[in-house]
């Protein structure tokens, strides 16, 4: 069973602070994604990656950076956190599980005060 691990599960940050959300997968999947989920918006794509060293902008990249230093790890970085970035963040990897399937982590609940 493919596994995607996110950390931390919960995070409280202050406005203007730096926040790093981490994601790890040991499935050897090439593609990884960061989404945020807000009521009324479903899941919106922030950044994604095709493999180590690659980062691509999704639909709502402003205020976020991403880093893919290895096949296994994909981080989402908020350099200057704002209250509008309070949300639940999901990481996912795309791999072949009988069919091409998106596997999600358990989510990180971020609150920016």
């Amino acid at each position, binding site marked *: 069973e493919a596994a995607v691990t996110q950390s931390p599960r919960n995070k409280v940050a202050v406005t203007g602070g730096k926040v790093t959300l981490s994601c790890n997968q040991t499935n050897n999947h090439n*593609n990884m*994604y960061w*989404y945020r989920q807000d009521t*009324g*918006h*479903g*899941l*919106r*794509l922030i950044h*994604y990656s*095709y493999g180590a060293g690659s980062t*691509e902008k*999704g*639909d709502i990249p402003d205020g976020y950076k991403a880093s893919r230093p290895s096949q296994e790890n994909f981080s989402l970085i908020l350099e200057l956190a704002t209250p509008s970035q309070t949300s*639940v963040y*999901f990481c*996912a990897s*795309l791999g072949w*599980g009988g*069919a*091409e*399937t*998106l*596997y*999600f982590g*358990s*989510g990180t609940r971020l609150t920016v005060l």
Partner: protein
Amino acid sequence: GDKVKQSPSALSLQEGTNSALRCNFSIAATTVQWFLQNPRGSLINLFYLVPGTKENGRLKSAFDSKESYSTLHIRDAQLEDSGTYFCAAEAGSAKLIFGEGTKLTVSS
């Protein structure tokens, strides 16, 4: 936004009844995935579809790329089917766009 539109936004069912959820696409979707987000917040993959149909137990899904829509049929709804159902479409480049979800409540 409007690239993937799901309907209805919310649905209430009695146990044992049937229903259908729908996604309409304004992008040239090549594949579709359906997910269930359970009440604990976990996202579970239900189906991956190229144009055609798939069935798994009480769930059946279809994807028509020419008419740009996908459906998810739930037969004999059970309490554990409650949650929010999402469809996601890919239009090349491995970028998956999600709809806003259908919140399903099954009651006894």
